[in-house]
């Protein structure tokens, strides 16, 4: 049907623009995926605001900032190892990104069983991340005496930003674990067989990779600075 669009496509930059603005979907992806992308951009701004806030108060506070590699050290079998727990947590989360990617891959091939197993494994790794975070929080609160409003080691903002940012991220991970489990259950039940595609697995994957990526930034800004 001729809708008045020229059939010939111009080349170069002009071509990109007219292709993108043509009367079709701007992105060749399902609606849900496009929406997840845009949501994640918005969520990026949330985390960026949190981290900017953290950097600002870290500079505005008049009291010295506690040394993170001291605070986040564990003594294991008599050895004092800085940042060990965080290293394990980061490793676990990055691994979960790997299992998620594999789940998506098996989704393309329509291997229902493997998809379910890998998604559940991802959820399990996510849950253990949250578990370790709970352990870390407990240690900070009970042993080090860190509170959102103050701590014995220095600037009060250390505790406030730590609990707020890791807490908000932890909520994202927890939501992701639930999301993964629900989708895995639906895949297992065969909800997507009719449609014949597992795009929902991919969308879940996007969210999960994003949460991991954000963690890398939090890790770098909070623990390594």
């Amino acid at each position, binding site marked *: *049907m001729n*809708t*008045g*669009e020229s*059939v010939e*496509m111009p080349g170069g930059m002009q071509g990109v623009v007219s292709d*993108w*603005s*043509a*009367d*079709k*979907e*701007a*992105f*060749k992806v399902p*609606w*849900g995926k*496009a*929406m997840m992308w*845009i*949501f994640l*951009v*918005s*969520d990026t*701004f*949330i985390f*960026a*605001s*949190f981290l*900017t*806030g953290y950097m*600002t*108060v870290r500079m*505005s*506070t*008049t*009291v010295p900032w506690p040394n993170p590699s001291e605070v986040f050290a564990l003594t294991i079998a008599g050895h004092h190892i800085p940042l060990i727990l965080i290293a394990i947590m980061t490793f676990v989360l990055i691994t979960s990104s790997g299992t998620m990617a594999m789940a998506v891959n098996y989704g393309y091939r329509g291997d229902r069983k493997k998809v379910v197993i890998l998604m559940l494994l991802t959820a399990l790794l996510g849950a253990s991340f949250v578990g370790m975070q709970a352990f870390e929080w407990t240690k900070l609160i009970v042993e080090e005496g860190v509170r*959102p*409003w103050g701590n014995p080691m220095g*600037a*009060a*903002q250390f*505790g*406030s*930003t730590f609990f*707020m940012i890791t807490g*908000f991220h932890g909520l994202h991970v927890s939501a992701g674990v639930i999301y993964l489990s629900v989708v895995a259950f639906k895949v297992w039940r065969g909800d997507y067989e009719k*449609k014949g595609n597992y795009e929902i697995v991919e969308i879940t994957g996007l969210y999960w990779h994003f949460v991991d990526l954000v963690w890398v930034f939090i890790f770098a800004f909070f623990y390594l600075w």
Partner: protein
Amino acid sequence: MAHVAIADEGQELHHPKSWVTAYIWSQDHKVIAIQYGITAISVGLVALVLSGLMRLQLGFPDTFSFLAPYEYYQYVTMHGMIMVIYLLTALFLGGFGNYLIPLMLGARDMVFPFLNMLSFWVYLLSVIVLMASFFVPSGPTGAGWTLYPPQAILEGTPGAGAGILLMLVSLAIFIVAFTMGGLNYVVTVLQARTRGMTLMRMPLSVWAIFVATILGLLAFPALFVSAIMMTLDLQIGTSFFMPAILSMGENLEYEGGSPVLFQHLFWFFGHPEVYIVALPAFGLVSDVLSTHARKSIFGYRMMVWAILAIGGISFIVWAHHMYVSGMNPYFGFFFATTTLIIAIPTAIKVYNWVLTLWRGNIHLTVPMLFAIGFIFTFIHGGLTGLFLGNVSVDVPLSDTYFVIGHFHMVMGVSPVLVLFAAIYHWFPKITGRMFHNALGVWHFWITFLGTYAIYLPMHYLGFLGVPRRYYAYGTTDLIPESAHTMNAGITVAAFIVGTAQILFFINVFWSLRKGKKADPNPWRATTLEWQTPQTPPAHGNWGPELPVVYRWAYEYSTPGSAEDFIPQTDPVDETHPSSGE
């Protein structure tokens, strides 16, 4: 060119089975739009009443005693916040965005109708939480709509405790609601246009709402985060925004926070917010002007690029609200420059509106009157914005009535005039009835002239140095007797304008029951929403087939055509030539 039948992609329309699912828990974008509209206008009325009470106090401080000083602060705050967020943002995006996007693009609904429905109910919750703050013992917060800490959460501020907490919680809920709706609007525009509807054939209303929604999705996060941080400062005792401080003779526990951080976060949201309400107004008014002037919009492409440019630049001007907070002169220079730069695409739009009217076949219908009124008030408010954008001019004028006059002209009155224009313009489509013309004309003239009577004198008061957010001025050398007289005059004008809005409501209710049955396309407009098989459009908007688009949205008075308009759905041939693109 391979074509994806996009608007039909796997969308299973939710078919309402009962009255409740059709009108209450409805997933139909048109019903949701009306729900948004009614809620927004209702809270807007609350804000209007509050401003009336404030004006009584300011105009006749010795005669009336409706307000205690602390109540004045509470009412200023609630008035400002409701107007900006809960009325304008909700009505433009939740109301008109919801109604027009699918119809103008030839879609059956938003891409995720269920999420869209949730968006409204969560918005309603945020309104309820906000209104609840009138009924807690502390009353609503009196921190000013900008909620600057440290004062926002200190004991001495009216509404300390529950008032400010409810405000912050309500804002956070509102942002969640907005995000659910906003994602829908953006994805619908990107992915669900009908055949032939290229981006450059979209009506400017859709373009503007689209870009405004993106601004919202990127700007509201900053407000969301500041609301969380302030809630923690308030409830848990963290010190994000709170420095060491002495309040009511007591040393508080706070230490080392940064109040200016809040200002940056707030205005990183706050300035784009101005455009979140202004851009939809720009878009809607473009369509109204073009239709009623029977002329294609002047410089369509330029208009689109101007919308995009304004949207982009609006993220790098925020600190012009903070000149008096103290900043490095180079930053002041930077933000003054970007502020003046954003005036360029804005001015282009104004020229294009005027050139659209130039030699048009202007029909002075009620929507057109409001649209032309908007051009006046917007130019007016825009010009005073140029003053305030410059550091050296802003510093003495900041926090005076000059600022009140400026922003009421540019983001208070102007968008409201467009809202009226849009409501009158689309009323026949939404309700299937015509409104009462004479009542509409009276409503326009009183509102339009009245706003000048209210806000022009405020600029003069500002030059005198009369400060804003004051309960009463008493007698000082600063403020001459004439200023008090002027304040009384402003109040009288405000009352006339406020009361005149009753004409609008009478008109709506009367027309709903007794209005003439509307023609499907009473304004003889080109865009898709006027070409629906039913008026008001039925669930699913279109018949069995989606419409197909053959031309741009502004085919008015095309040379060689018998009619003075050609709908977007008419194929191009000898008797229906194409002028556009």
